[in-house]
């Protein structure tokens, strides 16, 4: 079972490499990969596609600055965040806005696994842990 999963992971990694152009996941390439897999279904196609999905979603998350906010955020602020993150990570990053009243006030920006916490709820959580 472990060997099957490892093989699926290896194939998914190869397919993922084919889907990336200039450090960015290409929509056309992904469509091409999916068409190829549909036509020439590999052994354990479900496992391969799940692993491929995971790799692509992780990569896409790295190209998106998910901005969570409690109040309104001006489009200029979103543009500024996108520009700052693009500079920081040296790759094109687009900012998307998501309302989250649970933050109480402030912002939380997520780029891949990194979270930039500047919300009141985050500070309260940190405070409660330190007490």
């Amino acid at each position, binding site marked *: 079972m*472990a060997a099957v999963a490892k093989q699926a*992971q290896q194939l998914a990694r190869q397919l993922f490499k084919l889907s990336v152009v200039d450090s960015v996941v290409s929509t056309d390439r992904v469509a091409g990969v999916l068409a190829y897999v549909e036509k020439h279904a590999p052994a354990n196609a479900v496992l391969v596609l799940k*692993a491929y999905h*995971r790799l692509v979603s992780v990569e896409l998350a790295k190209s998106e600055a998910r901005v969570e906010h409690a109040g309104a955020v001006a489009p200029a602020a979103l543009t500024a965040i996108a520009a700052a993150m693009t500079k920081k990570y040296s790759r094109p990053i687009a900012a998307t806005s998501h309302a989250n009243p649970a933050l109480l006030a*402030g*912002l939380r*920006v*997520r780029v*891949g*696994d*990194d*979270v*930039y*916490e*500047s919300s*009141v709820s*985050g*500070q309260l959580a*940190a405070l409660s*842990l330190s007490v």
Partner: protein
Amino acid sequence: MSTVLDQIEQQIAKLSTKAVKKNTGNIRTIADGVAKIDGLSDVMYNEMVAFPGGAIGIALNLEETEVGCVILGDVSKLKEGDEVTTTGKLLSVPVGKALLGRVVDALGNAVDGKGPIDAKETYPVERIAPGIMARKSVNQPLFTGIMAIDSMIPIGRGQRELIIGDRGTGKTTIAIDTIINQAKINKVGLASGDAKFRPVYSIYVAIGQKSSNIVRTVAALEAAGALEYTIIVAATAADNPANQYIAPYSGAAMGEWFMENGMDALIVYDDLSKHAVAYRQISLILKRPSGREAYPGDVFYLHSRLLERAARLDGKGSLTALPIIETLAGDVSAYIPTNVISITDGQIFLETDLFNQGIRPAVSVGLSVSRVGSSAQIKATKQVGGKLKGELAQFRELAAFAQFGSDLDAKTKAQLERGARIVELFKQPAFSPASIELQVSVLFAMQKGFFDPIDAKKVVVAAANMKNFFTTRKDALLTEIRNKAALDKDLEAKLQAACDEWKSGYTA
């Protein structure tokens, strides 16, 4: 007034605009104190990760698609999908004298209900052992208070001496006796006002033991007045395997603080068999490849890196380790026992047969050894007990032949008689360690044949009587032996006179 308020407002304003960067992941699966986490792309090996609710984990498996973490603390409220963050720190525990007299868990939190511990410093749980140049040879004795050990298998400060035997053979008792003896020596030494006196502080690490046993141990130490010099690290059988895995390293960190600060410490790992089992459980859940007896490939390193931290440092203090291993049916050739035997500087082997025969402590003289040898003995012990191990070995050999019932010559009979008396003399009740000066006195009496006229079965009573005689009536002589640490002609004459006095007053 307004200036103060301005300052606070400025601080709030600063805080409210400051963004904190965290590297996060999400729990994919969680079972038996081990979590598999998606994300955590920046995590480092052995780094502490923070779980919701204040639980702490350690990243042990860094894989392409996930991170395997062991969780220390309450896992019951954690669930799939919970967010986990890296901390950028290694796991640390509080260290220092504030922990003496306390019972703590694997993370150094007090569990004895005596309130929080006011520790000023913390040490990382995992540390690289001292290198070659920093070490000094082991030549200062660490008295266990057990005659059979101090006279035949001496332990030095900075040594690693394994206590090995089946269940119920008195392994823990030897360790507790040693801790109690350190406390007794500390009290006498500190009271004497000797500037050169170096007290030994003890750390007792209980791994996978029943809570009732730990309570009993704490009570025994308290009753003997030894708890004030002892730290107890408890990872009970009810604790999750991660806590049991980390507990000996936490104890070692606490011991290292004493060593680094020019003090001497003793650490007891009770026991490393259960520690290996806890690590095996973690490794199997982490899906690490298993080897012999299903232990992972790095189980040797698990114990070698722990025991290598015991050392005597040049210009600093020492950390003496007494690891305990429980064997099954006396099988010392099993995987974990052979590993730990090869790491340590000797072993005290306890035999079930001897224990059942009433020979307690049930130390097997033939299989026990201290690789530090007589360099960790005071001269007085060497003078009175130097030949004891050989004599006892000869006795065992002759006793085996004597079972055939053939006629024996006078010399063999004498050797058998003497051997039987030595065996009886070494019998010692639990939790009553004898001071080294008392041991020297009793062994001197044995050497000079004072026990020869006494029936072998009555030697235990006679020895107890003699110890009582020396303690109550020859205190000055005992103090002289302790201070000189060697028997000169004058001291020998005094001892001879004291033994004669005892003999004249003693009726078997």
